[in-house]
């Protein structure tokens, strides 16, 4: 692809075009809307694949930059050389670029979005509004990993908030409005705390550019208390999204109420924004504080891992099992970040991508089961392998991937994250974390075996297996999981340069 083509801009703007097109399609044209619904994400996926193919793996610098002006303003900034405030023109462009850290996530986002758009094909109610908000969500998700300055990051971040609120509140289950409000308040709080931190960071460094801040902040003379406060505020703000243990309640509600296609995106992509922010901002802006607080982060990860695991073990409902499983797996991301070495960070990024694919697959299958049987309670399901062998088989596959079976993506991720933490000063936490791996096998197998085997309920004897069209997203996701499992270099190679760069700054 020639340099002049603004690839990333096209990637972010494709869903915007989708929104415009959908806005002019009359709402009774259901078939047409559905076609647009999957064509647009498919195009975006092609752009993402192109970006992957043309990525320069040698470089840690952001690549394929695209930028256009958003706004600019004059602001009195402190100039130490003359010891006075001078009015400076500060411009905030929509600056997009991709580096080794964002590339895997962008690719995963594009894939999961595409697959969930295929899964939407069974939706029938208010399709027009659904796709409008879905594309809005897609704009936010596509942009958030590419944003090069804090304002643009925040804008994309908030777009996902608004879009997911409406997707949950309009199209969700019985308790949808409560779930949506809980989501809105918790995440709104998280994102505005983040905005507050961003504004203070701007005040301290005089720039919104992420790289500029990463370079200036560790060198700037800042009150250490303020710096520590900012660090923890940022952890809390991103911890809402990730989610970290006491801040997770909203996420369970959304998992329980939102329509399956939306949960695929939520669990698959949106939780990863928190993890991405953790690496990009917490690690990137405060490398000097990180060694000091890494054990605390690892401890938070341990709480997530064990609490999520044990809670998942006793849930009566598949949706809740998977929700707690997500919580538990995000603990492993925290492990990887807290390890502060190549293995750990590599593991964290792998876990983000791998969990994105696996949980998208789990919720895709769950949606199919729910639609056929009308329930997701474990005690009401059973023996599904007899009536829907494909779906049940894939469910078992996803469960095995989730509990970390070797040769699948989950194993690579967890192995690296644990290895990294064992090699770091907080290795006792990693040792305790091993319990979590055992429990994850237990809860996944309990939930999945009870639904696929055992006696088949009489009321479910007539349900049908997956239709050919439904098989496509299942197999694509499964193929991606296997690919990463057997050939991890697809992700590891582009990641390396950037991770060395990030790690090179640590130590203080």
């Amino acid at each position, binding site marked *: 692809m020639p340099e002049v083509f603004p690839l990333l801009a096209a990637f972010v703007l494709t869903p915007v075009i989708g929104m415009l097109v959908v806005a002019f399609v009359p709402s009774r044209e259901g078939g047409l809307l559905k076609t647009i619904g999957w064509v647009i994400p498919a195009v975006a996926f092609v752009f993402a694949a192109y970006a992957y193919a043309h990525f320069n793996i040698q470089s840690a610098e952001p690549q394929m930059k695209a930028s256009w002006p958003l*706004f600019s303003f004059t602001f*009195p900034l402190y100039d130490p050389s003359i010891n006075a405030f001078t009015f400076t023109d500060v411009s905030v462009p929509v600056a997009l670029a991709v580096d080794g850290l964002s590339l895997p996530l962008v690719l995963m986002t594009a894939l999961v979005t595409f697959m969930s758009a295929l899964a939407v094909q069974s939706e029938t109610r208010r399709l027009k*509004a659904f796709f409008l908000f879905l594309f809005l969500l897609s704009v936010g998700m596509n942009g958030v990993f590419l944003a090069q300055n804090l304002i643009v990051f925040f804008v994309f971040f908030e777009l996902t*908030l608004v879009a997911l609120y*409406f997707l949950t*509140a309009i199209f969700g289950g019985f308790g949808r*409005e409560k779930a949506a409000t809980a989501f809105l308040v918790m995440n*709104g709080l998280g994102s*505005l705390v983040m905005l507050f931190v961003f*504004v203070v960071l701007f005040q301290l460094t005089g720039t919104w550019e992420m790289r500029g801040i990463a370079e200036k902040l560790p060198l700037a003379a800042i009150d250490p208390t303020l710096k520590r406060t900012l660090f923890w505020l940022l952890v809390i703000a991103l911890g809402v999204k990730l989610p970290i243990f006491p801040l997770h309640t909203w996420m369970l509600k959304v998992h329980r109420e939102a329509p399956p296609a939306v949960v695929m995106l939520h669990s698959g992509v949106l939780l990863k924004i928190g993890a991405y922010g953790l690496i990009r901002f917490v690690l990137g802006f405060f490398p000097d504080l990180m060694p000091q607080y890494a054990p605390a982060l690892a401890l938070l990860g341990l709480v997530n891992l064990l609490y999520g695991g044990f809670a998942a073990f006793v849930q009566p409902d598949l949706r809740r099992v998977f929700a707690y499983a997500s919580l538990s797996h995000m603990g492993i991301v925290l492990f990887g970040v807290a390890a502060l070495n190549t293995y750990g960070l590599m593991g964290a990024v792998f876990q983000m991508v791998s969990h994105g694919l696996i949980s998208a697959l789990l919720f895709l299958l769950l949606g199919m089961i729910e639609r056929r049987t009308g329930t997701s309670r474990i005690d009401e399901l059973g023996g599904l392998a007899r009536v829907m062998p494909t779906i049940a088989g894939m469910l078992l596959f996803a469960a095995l991937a989730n509990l970390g079976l070797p040769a699948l993506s989950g194993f690579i991720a967890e192995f690296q994250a644990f290895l990294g933490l064992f090699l770091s000063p907080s290795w006792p936490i990693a040792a305790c974390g091993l319990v979590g791996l055992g429990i994850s096998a237990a809860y996944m197998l309990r939930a999945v075996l009870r639904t696929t085997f055992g006696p088949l309920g009489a009321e479910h004897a007539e349900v049908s297996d997956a239709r050919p069209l439904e098989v496509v997203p299942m197999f694509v996701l499964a193929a991606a999981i296997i690919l990463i499992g057997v050939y991890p270099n697809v992700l590891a190679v582009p990641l390396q340069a950037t991770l060395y760069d990030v790690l090179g700054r640590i130590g203080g």
Partner: protein
Amino acid sequence: MNAIWLPEVIVLAGAIGTLAFGLAARRSKAMSDLAMTLALITVVVALLPTVGLIGTVEEGFAGAFRIDGLTLAFHLLILIGTGLVLLIARDGRSDGVPPQYLAEYAALLLFAALGGMLIAAAADLLLLFLGLELLSISSYVLVGLKKTHLGSTEAAMKYVLTGATATAVFAFGMSYAIGLTGTTDVYQIGQTMADAGFMARYGRLLFVAFFFLIVGAFYKLASVPFYMWAPDVYQGAPTAVTAFLATVSKASGMALVVRLFLGSFAWVAWEAQPNVIKNFWSESTPYIAALSALSMIVGNVLALKARDVKRMFAYSSVAHAGYLIIPLAAVNPMMIDQIVFYLLAYLLANVGIFAVIDQVGRDRGSYDLSAFSGLYHRAPLVAWALLLFFLSLAGIPLTMGFFGKLNILLGAVWGGHFVLAGLLVVTSVISYVYYFAVLKQVFMRPGTTERPLAFSFGTATVIALAVLGTLLGSLFPGEVMRTMQQAFDAVQMFGIYQGRL
């Protein structure tokens, strides 16, 4: 010499003309319509010399009347707001206002606007007081215009009583300020205060004067401590008048506070003890910050419980008053720009929402939240416009309100007010809950009827203009801000650059 008084004179002439026209044409519906149109024309005509005066800094009438960037910015806000409110009022005839009073309705709106304009232009305490009273008394009558409606009468009564108290407080503060400094000129007061030894001697009394003045002025802003009137008055008044109180009246109050604070008090510095220089703004800032914080908390928390949309917007307006006061507490070089930009964003979104409230309320005969149910199916375009307004008020990115809040946040952090910045953030999240509660009705709840809701010409125009303005501010916030800075040059005016900060 420019005709710096021209905008005010046009509005005054228009108001008197409308009133006379109404008297002559009593009980004729066509004539009453014409009175409203005449008022609207007056506003548009008054806008022309206002725009023409941009860039002028001039005093007249022995320094009592001052045209500068601040004045013109607020004149524009007030005139635009009044014009939009008149458009709503023109169509909201059936909102319980007896038809024979329509000409008075229009004339009173113009008189109130004139009061606001005088406040913005006054550089003399007496003229300020005159403007304040003109605005207040016209507003009392406007609130009670629905003569046969119990709620409206009750609202007017409450408004008069609290208003009178606030005026008394203001006048009391004025008497101290004038008595101690021996002058009524706002800028002269500041200069007298800066005399050597003056503050050491009378400092405490001047602080008393200052707080009485500011607190009295906060009544117009509907901020703590004088916010109690807002819910009942907002609910009882005709919707167009509510919109007027929420926007134009608040803008006028802001002009009053800014002029008093920055004109007289803020820059006074004195030697409290040998070698200890104190200045007024840093001494007063904790108190102003406290009032701002309380307004944000009280407004946003109480709004959560409101079922009546007009009441909800009363509390919401208390909250926004709190946001607007932040720049005064966190004194910084961009403070006036922050205030004016935020006011503009707030005004556009609020007028648009009140236009919808008016139309829906007249259609359903209720201002309950549930009156909005199913609006998306009845009027999809208006529902999307409403989404834009609410997102702007809530401060969600890529809307004008977001950039307004971002500016205020930047200013708060610049001024070192981390607590206020934090509160702005937390209370904004609380506001999500009740703003989205309305959107929930609009987009998610099925209504009792699917009948398309027709919007009358004036309301539709207001909504369209508000959408246009909000979009303009959302897409080009930098340009809007720069235009404002160049045209009104508010920053230069109080000498914020000249080493005072």
